[in-house]
């Protein structure tokens, strides 16, 4: 299997659906960072068959809030001094700006170029969001 160095200090994003890794890599702006990062695609997984992973070295500061929306099954592992310090899932964000498009053709955000979409989570159990402008519901 392809080997990527063990991380002494950093973040591992795991259980990304195969094929989705690049999108998340880009969404996090990892093309433009100065610390070492690795995108590993099509890793064998007993749970998922195949999966993608992202390993980020030398930083523990990264805004991952929106990842829950893009990849509900993602797990995040924080490593410091070679040890796992924290392992967590990412819950759906309460407020999402610009990522969800409103499907209501009468909504101002589908028409106004200054209008970026804003959705707020209304029901975590059904993953339902609501347009902050027109009230249209969207299920993730």
């Amino acid at each position, binding site marked *: 299997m392809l080997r990527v160095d063990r991380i002494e200090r950093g973040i591992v994003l795991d259980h990304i659906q195969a094929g989705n890794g690049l999108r998340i890599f880009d969404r996090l702006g990892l093309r433009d960072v100065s610390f070492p990062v690795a995108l590993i695609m099509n890793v064998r997984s007993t749970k998922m068959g195949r999966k993608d992973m992202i390993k980020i070295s030398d930083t523990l500061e990264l805004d991952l809030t929106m990842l829950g929306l893009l990849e509900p099954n993602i797990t995040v592992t924080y490593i410091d001094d070679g040890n796992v310090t924290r392992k967590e899932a990412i819950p759906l964000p309460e407020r999402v700006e610009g990522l969800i498009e409103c499907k209501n053709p*009468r909504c101002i*955000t589908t028409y*106004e170029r200054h209008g970026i979409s804003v959705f707020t989570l209304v029901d975590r159990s059904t993953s339902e969001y609501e347009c902050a402008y027109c*009230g249209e519901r969207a299920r993730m």
Partner: protein
Amino acid sequence: MQTRNFINSLDLSPSQYDRLFDLADRINHAPATYAQRCQGKVMASLFYEPSTRTRLSFEAAMLRLGGQILTVADPKTSSAAKGESLADTIRTIAGYADLIVMRHPREGAAQLAGEYSPVPLINGGDGAREHPTQTLTDLFTIRTFLGRLRGLSVGLCGDLRYGRTVHSLIRALARLGDQRFVLISPDELRLPDRVLSSAAALGEGNTFEQTASMDEALTRCDVLYVTRIQKERFFNEEDYIALRDTYVLTAGKMQQAKPEMIVMHPLPRVTEIEANVDDDPRAVYFEQARLGMIVRMALILDLLEGGDDAAG
């Protein structure tokens, strides 16, 4: 100074409603005291879709406070047609005015405009979503005639499916609690379930009853709120005419109603209330329109200078 807007009817808390209606009461009883209060202030009315009635009510309100009006004749052709965004139009107009009233066909337009406006902005209606000053008008009318906004039997009649006026009123009253709603409509135009459940969740002690019979329900109401049944809602003319005529309020039916019941209507009225009801003292719909102007005066005053409190 923090800019305040009035975008959704539930933006104000019940106690803010009370304060606003107290101010409206004082204006109603002593209009001369308020005739100069907005001298030197300019209100811009920006109507992206025509609504003469609402626009006149706002403009009359501002004029009666001694303020000035800036009417953007037809913003749809003058700026939007040239490709100007709503956000840009609002920021431009805000430089000329102390207050903006806007009506727009798009849902959520008022909220977006409010986010960009450095001066207070009032939603004069945004598509099918909200028309919050109509709700103010309705509540203030009920309070003026019945002296209370809780523990009422409220009959709502006509098009309960598409009428945003009715939806907002039900929510605002339900939030106060202890109301008995009697929803009178043909099956085709029943109140949508989502409106009913959202209203039910807002307050305690409310009951909701659905019926297709106006005659029977009428006898139990403190308020009868009549709305127009629109032809466009029906596939064929016969259905429309049959239903329309079932939900017409007549002087005969009024004999069955309580002596202190009030009949309200957001206007314009077409055929759903017969002209012979107009002389009944319980028919308050024209007074309702006047009270709408009074309550808009209170709102303008509140947004421009914090009501009576700030002026000391």
